[in-house]
């Protein structure tokens, strides 16, 4: 089935399959990039949520350090609660943080409604911080960055999501522990027991931050992360370190007068941490955004490359079509035109060194040879025609000479006889009179024969005009009358009722008939056991045609030879050249008719030729 498709269709199929085979991986690429972009977007959303959480932390810590007034606190809490509610409404669904957000909101409201006058806000603050941290951890749990090969975003987010909230929480716990014990009972046992573990936790978190950020720096190829956050991280760590350092020195012996300084150090550490958080978060956003941009760029590049290759493949298909299919189509068109018009001068135009070009060149060479062969054939045929015409003319001349010689011989003989009668001693005038009468009548007979021959050749040999074909047949039969009679051949001429006129050249058609009848006579010469009969029929054949049938009872033609009998130099006669029937065919062809041969029943052969009828329409044209 594929074999029978047009070549352009095959090309189209090939091109389509190629495009699909490009398109499928392209779709996969786009899908993959879109997933990656979606991941990054989600991280961005999470980061934004974390920004809200950071504000909550800032608000909680500001509430912790110095409470200006109940109204301000409430307003501050309302603001962050509102921000949290907005964020939760916008993106909470993605992180399933509804319960934790509610817990944070409740803690914040508790914090906001707590009596500021009391000055004892520690437990609610810690509670709010713990709730906020849980929220942050939930957001962090939903992060996909762990799967990400980009280490910078991974570590930065880890710091932002886990380490900094925990750090802030521990700082507050430490401050709470410190304040509780300083104010209640200095150097208590409880403090001594709690402080070292908290300090270790804090230092461990600070180390983690340091370690993580170093890992993040390594994962950040262009170093922008380090430039953006190094100072803030260092400041945060320094302030945490100095807070811990003071506490560590003081833990063996400090007094309440230093409480303000501790508060300030704590506040500074918290502020630095929040600040570092903000900076890190901004950097995370930037990195994520850059990653999205990078993914988008890579996807665009990939699509552009695929598009370019698809375009190139289409271009190649078009070029293939132009340089294979179109030349082949033109070749085919030229071939069929040559076949229809027989115009061998046509040439296919396509010059190339490829197979198509060579096929085209070979085709043109073949046409050259065909044209040359046809020219040779035409030349040979015209030469044959010339030879045959000469032969026919010679035969006709011999026939005419014989016909004229007959009365001439009689005239001479009669004349001589008359002279001899006159020469007698007593001339027999009666005999002389008879002799002279015979001379006169034979003279007239000779004149008639000459006149008939002249009439036959009077018309221009090339001129064509309307002819009554029945009369023409009768003329030729009359010309061959003596020959037919001498061979004892009975002639049966049948003319249809209508007068059938054809357009043709009189002499040429006479030659055709002369040839066919002479052949019939030759074919019957050897026949002795049956009547020698020549039957010529003129009848209306197919519409617009006249059929002339020449039938004899001669020896016939070998059926094996019948197909070739019209070919030049094919003959059944021992002395013939085999040109007569070839010329007959070319003459009839030139007249727009057809000539055919078949076997007679039961003997002899039947030659039939057709000629187009002369119509009155042609007369009008003339």
């Amino acid at each position, binding site marked *: 089935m594929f074999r029978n498709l047009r070549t352009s269709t095959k090309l189209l199929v090939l091109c389509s399959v190629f495009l699909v085979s490009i398109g499928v991986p392209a779709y996969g690429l786009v899908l993959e990039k879109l997933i990656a972009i979606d991941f990054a977007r989600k991280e961005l959303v999470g980061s934004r949520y974390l920004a809200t959480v950071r504000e909550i932390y800032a608000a909680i810590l500001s509430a912790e350090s110095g409470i200006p007034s109940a109204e301000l606190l409430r307003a501050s809490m309302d603001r962050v609660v509102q921000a949290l509610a907005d964020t939760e409404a916008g993106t909470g669904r993605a992180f399933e943080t509804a319960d934790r957000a509610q817990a944070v909101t409740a803690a914040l409201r508790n914090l906001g409604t707590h009596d500021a006058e009391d000055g004892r806000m520690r437990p609610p603050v810690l509670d709010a911080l713990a709730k906020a941290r849980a929220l942050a951890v939930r957001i962090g749990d939903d992060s996909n960055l762990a799967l990400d090969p980009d280490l910078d975003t991974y570590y930065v987010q880890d710091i932002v999501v886990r380490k900094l909230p925990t750090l802030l929480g521990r700082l507050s716990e430490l401050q709470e522990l410190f304040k509780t014990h300083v104010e209640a009972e200095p150097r208590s046992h409880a403090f001594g027991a709690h402080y070292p573990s908290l300090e270790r936790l804090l230092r461990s978190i600070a180390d983690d931050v340091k370690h993580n950020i170093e890992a993040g720096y390594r994962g950040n190829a262009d170093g922008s992360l380090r430039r953006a956050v190094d100072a803030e991280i260092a400041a945060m760590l320094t302030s945490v370190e100095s807070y811990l350092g003071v506490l560590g020195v003081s833990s063996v012996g400090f007094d309440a007068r230093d409480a303000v300084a501790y508060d300030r150090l704590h506040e500074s550490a918290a502020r630095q941490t929040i600040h570092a958080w903000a900076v890190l978060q901004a950097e995370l956003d930037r990195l994520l955004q850059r990653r999205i941009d990078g993914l988008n760029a890579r996807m665009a590049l990939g699509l552009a490359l695929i598009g370019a290759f698809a375009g190139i493949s289409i271009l190649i298909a078009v070029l293939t079509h132009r340089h294979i299919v179109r030349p082949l189509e033109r070749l085919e068109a030229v071939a069929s035109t040559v076949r229809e018009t027989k115009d061998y001068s046509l040439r296919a135009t396509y010059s190339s060194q490829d197979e198509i070009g060579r096929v085209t060149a070979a085709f043109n060479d073949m046409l050259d040879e065909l044209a040359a062969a046809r020219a040779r054939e035409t030349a040979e045929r015209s030469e044959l025609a010339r030879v045959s015409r000469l032969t026919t003319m010679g035969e006709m001349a011999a026939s005419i000479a014989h016909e004229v010689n007959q009365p001439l*011989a009689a005239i001479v*003989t009669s004349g*001589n*006889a008359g002279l001899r009668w006159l020469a007698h001693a007593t001339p027999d005038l009666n005999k002389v009179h008879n*002799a002279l009468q015979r001379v006169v009548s034979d003279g007239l007979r000779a004149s008639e024969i000459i006149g008939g021959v002249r009439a036959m050749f009077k018309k221009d040999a090339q001129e064509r005009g309307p002819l009554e074909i029945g009369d023409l047949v009768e003329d030729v039969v009359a010309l061959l009358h003596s020959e037919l009679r001498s061979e004892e051949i009975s002639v049966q001429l049948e003319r249809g009722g209508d007068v059938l006129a054809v357009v043709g050249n009189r002499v040429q058609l006479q030659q055709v008939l002369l040839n066919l009848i002479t052949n019939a006579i030759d074919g019957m010469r050897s026949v002795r056991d049956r009547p020698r009969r020549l039957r010529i029929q003129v009848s209306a054949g197919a519409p617009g045609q006249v059929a002339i049938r020449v039938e004899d009872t001669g020896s016939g033609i070998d059926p094996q030879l019948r197909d070739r009998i019209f070919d030049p130099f094919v003959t059944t006669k021992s002395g013939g050249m085999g040109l007569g029937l070839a010329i007959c065919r070319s003459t009839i062809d030139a007249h727009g008719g057809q000539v055919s041969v078949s076997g007679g029943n039961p003997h002899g052969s039947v030659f039939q030729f057709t000629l187009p009828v002369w119509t009155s329409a042609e007369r009008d044209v003339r």
Partner: protein
Amino acid sequence: MSDSSAAQPVVFVIDDDASLRASLSDLFASVGLQVETFGAAVDFLRTRLPDGPSCLVLDVRLPGLSGLDFQADLAKANMHLPIIFITGHGDIPMSVRAMKAGAVEFLTKPFRDQDLLDAVQRGLELDRTRREQQKSLADLRARFESLTPREQEVIARVSAGLMNKQIAGELGVAEITVKVHRGNAMRKLGAKSLADLIRIAQMLGLHRPH
């Protein structure tokens, strides 16, 4: 026998052209020759040929068959009639074939009357000579038949060149007997000499029996 030699010579004409037949008939009549004309060969064959000298003027183109074929047919039928061919378009191969087959003349139409008449006279003379030869041969044969068987045996051996003694030996008779037979036979055959006898023996086609 004497009747036949005195019989009038006859010229036969076969030509399909009636006009030419009439002219030829008139021409031969004008020189006093008896003439019979035929339009076709078959008509001629139905005629009984006369005893006197005759010849045939034959058109090469005849209805039904060619004059040359007819010539061959006549030869096959042992009818040795001198033939003068006339033709409307003679060519060399045709005339050569005709002359080889024993034609007297081959004339192309239109021909000079004297040529034709000469040829006819020559033909008649040939026929007359042939008839005379046939007659003398028949005469000789009759004389030979009149010899006794023994005389015929002797003559056959004499003409073969045997001497009297040899013949006597072969036949088992005396030499003198051979001489008597030989003398009688020569007298009966009208041979004046040995050479004469040998000529006669050759004419009769005698040969030595074995």
